[in-house]
C-alpha cells in the first residue's frame, strides 16, 4: 500500500453523493493526479483527507495509520499539508507571517530566528520573497496561490495536497509550475496529490491519474491510458481533453 489511501470512501450532502465508494492509492514519491468535471468530488476528497469532513463509511489511511480519529490540527503534524482552491490565507498578516504560521506546527523546538530564515527560504523557493513584508490581502491571485504553497511547504510535509494550483496563472507560469511540482517530488522527495482542471499540466507531471465523476471513480491509470478512456472522454463534454481556458 502507498503513503496515502482512501478506502471505499463514502460521503453524502443531503441528496448529493459527493464520494461514492472512492478508493485511491498514492505511492510514496509519486505525483498522483485527481481530475474530474466540476462538482465531481475532488475538493471533497481533500477535505476528507484533512479531516474537515467526516466519512460516512470507508477510511483514510496515511502511512499505515487510519486518520479516522485524528483532529484536523493534527493532520499537518503527521505530515500532510494542503493548499486551497479558493485560497485560505490570513489576510491581514504579512506574506512572511502567513508562511511562519505554517512552520510553527512543525517546528515546535525551533528558535524564532531559525523559523524566520526557513520561512524566507521557502518564499524564495516559490519565487515571492520580494513580497515577504507585504500584507497578503490585495496581492494578485497567482501570488496568493504561491503563498499558500509556501505555507504548506513550511510545515515540511511528506504528502502535499494541491487543489488547483494553476488557478490564476498564465501559460508561461503554468509551465514553470509543472517544473516546480516535479522538483518537489524529485528534490524534496514529496508525494503529491494534484487536483487540477488544467489537463496539460496534470497529464505532463502525473505518474498516475484518477478520474472522478459525480463522486465515482470512472478511470484510474497512467496518464496516457486515462486520456484515451472513452468514459473519461464522455465525462468531459465534447470529448476533448483540452484545458477550458
Amino acid at each position, binding site marked *: 500500500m502507498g503513503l496515502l489511501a482512501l478506502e471505499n470512501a463514502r460521503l453524502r450532502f443531503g441528496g448529493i453523493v459527493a464520494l461514492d465508494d472512492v478508493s485511491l492509492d498514492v505511492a510514496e514519491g509519486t505525483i498522483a493526479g485527481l481530475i474530474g468535471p466540476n462538482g465531481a468530488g475532488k475538493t471533497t476528497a481533500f477535505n476528507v483527507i484533512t479531516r474537515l469532513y467526516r466519512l460516512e463509511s470507508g477510511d483514510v489511511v496515511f502511512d499505515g495509520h487510519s486518520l479516522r480519529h485524528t483532529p484536523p490540527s493534527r493532520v499537518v503534524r503527521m505530515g500532510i499539508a494542503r493548499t486551497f482552491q479558493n485560497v485560505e490565507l*490570513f489576510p491581514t498578516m504579512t506574506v512572511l507571517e502567513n508562511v511562519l*504560521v505554517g512552520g510553527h506546527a512543525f517546528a515546535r523546538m525551533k528558535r524564532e530566528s531559525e523559523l524566520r530564515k526557513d520561512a524566507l527560504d521557502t518564499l524564495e523557493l516559490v519565487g515571492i520573497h520580494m513580497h515577504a513584508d507585504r500584507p497578503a490581502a490585495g496581492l494578485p491571485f497567482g501570488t496568493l496561490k504561491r503563498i499558500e504553497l509556501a505555507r504548506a511547504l513550511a510545515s515540511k510535509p511528506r504528502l502535499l495536497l494541491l487543489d488547483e494550483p494553476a488557478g490564476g496563472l498564465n501559460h508561461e507560469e503554468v509551465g514553470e509550475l509543472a517544473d516546480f511540482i516535479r522538483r518537489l517530488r524529485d528534490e524534496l522527495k514529496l508525494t503529491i496529490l494534484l487536483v487540477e482542471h488544467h489537463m496539460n499540466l496534470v497529464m505532463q507531471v502525473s505518474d498516475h491519474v484518477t478520474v472522478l465523476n459525480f463522486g465515482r471513480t470512472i478511470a484510474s491509470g497512467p496518464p496516457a491510458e486515462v486520456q484515451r478512456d472513452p468514459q473519461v472522454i464522455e465525462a468531459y463534454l465534447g470529448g476533448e481533453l483540452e484545458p477550458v481556458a
Partner: protein
Amino acid sequence: MSAVQTREHPALRRDRLAALGPLGKPVNLILVGAAVFLLIGCLSSQIFAQQTVVGLAQGAVYGSLALALVLIYRATEVVNFAQGEMAMFTTYVAYQLTTSWHVTYWLAFALTLLIAFVFGMGVQLVFIRPVQHTSVIAVVIVTVGLFILIDGVVGWVWGADIKFMPAPFGNTVYHVGGVAIARQDIGTILVTIASVGLLWLLFQRTKLGLGMRAAALRPASARLVGVRVDRMLALGWGLAAVLGAVAGLMAEASEYSLQPSFMQPILLYAFAAAVLGGLESPVGALVGGVMIGIFLNLLGQYVSFVTSEIRLPFAFLVLIVVLLIKPTGLFGKKKVRKV
C-alpha cells in the same frame, strides 16, 4: 457639465491621498489635528493641561478595557458584556490579597494578573466554548449571564459596602509649571503602556501570538496548518482578562475605593472607546479610550451643563454618532471575507 462628471473618481482620490503618505489617511489627519489642538491647549492654559493629564490617565483605563473587548471580539466575534465585571472580580481578589492577607501591593498585583489569566481561560472553557458554535446571540446571553453571576457572587462574598485598598503609587502630587499631576495618574499611564507593550510583543513577535492571530482570523485554515484553535481562543480570553484586571486595579487606585459596581461605567466608556476606534482594531481601542477620556474631562471643564451625572450619556452620544457616521470606527476596515 453635470456635477457627476467633475467629481473625482474614488480610485484617483485614493491615489492622490496615498501620495501624501500616512498623512493622507483621514484617520491620521484627525489624530494629528487632535494632537495639535491638545498641545496648543495645554501650552496656553494650565487648567486645560490639568484636565488633559487626568483625562489621559482615565483614557488609559478605558483603553485597556476596550482592548480587552477587542481581543475577545476578534477571537469570538461577540462583545463580552461581562468584561467589566470580570475585572471587578479580579480587583476584589487583589483586595483580599492586600488587605486581608497582607501581601505587598505589587506582589498582589502580579498574583492577581496570574489569577485573572486562569480565570479568563476558565470562563472560556466552562461558559463560552459549549455555546460558541450555536449562535452569536447565545454567546452574548451567556456573557450577560456571567455579568449577573459575578456581580452576585462578589456581593455575596465581599458585601456591597465600600472597601479601601493600599494606594500603589502613594498620594503624591507633582507640580509642573502650575499644573498639578498626581503620581497615580502617571503610574496608571505607565502601567498601561507597559502592559499593552508586552501584549503587542507577544502578538507580533512570538510563535504563540502568531498562532493566536491565525486562530482568530481564520479558525478553519488555522486548524489545517496545525494551530490548536481551541487552546488559542482560551488563551485569548485569559489575556483579555489580564488586561481587564490591569484596568480594574488602576481604576480602583484612581478612585481610592472599591465597590461591586465600580467597573460598570468604565465598561460603558470602554464600549464607546472600542466602537470609536473600530471594534476590530486594537490600536483603535487604545486611541479611542484616550480620546474619550480626554474629551469627557475637557467637556466637563468647559461646558457648564456637562456635570458628572451627564458624563455617561455623553459617552453614549459618542457611541451612537460613530455608529451612524462611520460604523467601522476610526481604524476599522470593511470586512473582506474572501481574499
